[in-house]
């Protein structure tokens, strides 16, 4: 292969480097890079003034605020309950545990539109959960709380699945040492177990947050979609696109894309930190 890159690889007799790398780069360029670059290129045509007017409009600010706020709330809920579920699945034995464990991945496998209409039906005023909640004065469907519920659903597997393997690998001897030195169970958890699983839980939080910020399908059914109140940022892009306002749609999309890049970078750094902790632990 006449690739200049070939000189950079470690010496090995395994074939296919040029072919597979060339294919990988070509495929990623065509499917991922060029379309995303087109979005940025399109945004440069808009002009600073129009771009600023759109992305700082009160409706757009309300949409980002809602998307980030609801994603933070849902990821926080998953941070706490996901860690708890991981703990229970790793440490305890109880009937149907294996089934429950398998079900944790349901949000990865169930299409978001199905989740959206199912959650809306559950939490609608006459639904299984909506009826008792309404009698307590809590309204979920078509409110911001509904958005948090939907994002909690889609983000649930992340924290459980990042914390679970770390807990499984955690040597019980550390806890025994802490206990024999007189630490109570809660103290042992807070001082020994929690620091060990924190990087993994934080990675799960970041993954759930990133997923929640961009989520569309499961949210639009339950949200009510009122501008300024229950309109998430991805929906605002779709609305602008349906009005043929390409300038506005592209501007908001560029803001979202930039956030995605920052999150991707952050998650990669977290994962490196997390795997370093695993190796030394």
């Amino acid at each position, binding site marked *: 292969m006449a690739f200049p*890159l070939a000189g950079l690889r*470690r010496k*090995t*007799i*395994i074939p*296919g*480097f040029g072919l*597979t*790398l060339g294919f*990988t*780069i070509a495929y*990623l360029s065509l*499917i*991922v890079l*060029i*379309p*995303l670059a*087109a979005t940025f290129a*399109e945004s440069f045509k808009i002009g600073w003034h129009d771009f600023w007017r759109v992305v700082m409009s009160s409706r757009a600010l309300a949409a980002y605020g809602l998307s980030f706020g609801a994603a933070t709330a849902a990821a926080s809920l998953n941070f706490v*309950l996901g860690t*708890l*579920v991981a703990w*229970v699945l790793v440490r*305890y034995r*109880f009937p149907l545990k294996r089934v*429950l464990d*398998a*079900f944790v*991945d*349901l949000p*990865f*496998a*169930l*299409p*978001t539109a*199905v989740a959206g*209409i199912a*959650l809306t039906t559950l939490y609608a005023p006459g*639904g299984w959960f909506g009826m008792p909640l309404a009698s307590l004065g809590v309204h979920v469907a078509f409110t911001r709380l509904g958005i948090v519920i939907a994002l909690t*659903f889609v983000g649930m597997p992340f924290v459980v*699945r990042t914390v679970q393997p770390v807990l499984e690998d955690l040597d019980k*001897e550390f806890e*025994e040492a802490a*206990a*024999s030195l007189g630490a109570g169970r809660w103290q*042992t958890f807070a001082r020994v177990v929690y620091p060990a699983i924190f990087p993994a839980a934080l990675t799960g939080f970041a*993954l759930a947050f*990133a*997923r929640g910020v961009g*989520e569309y*399908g499961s949210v639009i059914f339950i949200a009510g979609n009122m501008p300024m109140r229950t309109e998430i*940022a*991805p929906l605002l*892009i779709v609305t602008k*696109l349906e009005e043929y306002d390409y300038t506005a*749609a*592209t501007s908001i*999309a560029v803001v979202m*894309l930039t956030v995605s890049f920052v999150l*991707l970078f952050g998650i990669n750094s977290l994962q490196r930190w997390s795997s370093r902790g695993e190796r030394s632990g």
Partner: protein
Amino acid sequence: MVSAIELRGAAPAVRESAWVRGLLIGTSVIFLGAFLLAPLAVVFAVALGKGLAAYAASFRDADTLSAIRLTLLAAAIAVPANLVFGVAAAWCIGKFEFFGKSFLIALIDLPFSVSPVVAGLAYVLLFGAHGALGPWLTDHNVRVIFAVPGILLVTIFVTVPFIARELLPLISAQGNDEEEAALTLGASGWQTFLKVTLPNVKWALLYGVILCNARAMGEFGAVSVVSGHIRGLTNTMPLQIEVLYNDYQFVPAFTVASLLALLALATLVIKSIVEWKAGKVGSQPT
């Protein structure tokens, strides 16, 4: 491990008291039950709520059948495309050291962190009537946006990482020794891949394929942006669910949804079997 088990009986301080255990297990079961089992149950409850006859009647709708066909087509294109990509990417990243490797890995993950709506918009901006390639495509009478090709392209986009992400950790963890031995003994590169590498990663490969398939059939946001929602032509199953639901046709909407819910259940069952076969405990999040 033996000492840990012995100690568990001897030293209650490394174990929680029975009521704490009960409380934690109870909270987890309620949380998972309310957030996972209840939505799944309600899909089947509504779909079958008016009886089996009404359930079956939902399949007599021509638009629903065409949506099912389009969804099958999207998965039939996207899964093999990303299978070839996943194997190629895992091979070059897992078996070789080169400059820019971690950048390439991050790039493969990118579709996971981009909002599906933004992905759809990116394709509209490139291939749409106002897009960069729009005039050229119009001159040559090719429709990508608001047509089937656009749906196929965005489905490939959102499912790019699945198979590569499952294969990569395994292929790089296994090292090159077995492959180098096979090559030294005179096997061709292709033979080495099929007879040495593939058997080692076949369960991860299968798991990647079923996850990729589930997402390809279920994608909503990205497909919604490029589809144009032309009934009977460019509606996939998730889009058809939205159309029926917004028309207050709840039984047909949930009937289509129940098919995708069954697909999700099948995905979870196959995943459990794959994990059991591969003997690995827990799984990497995607």
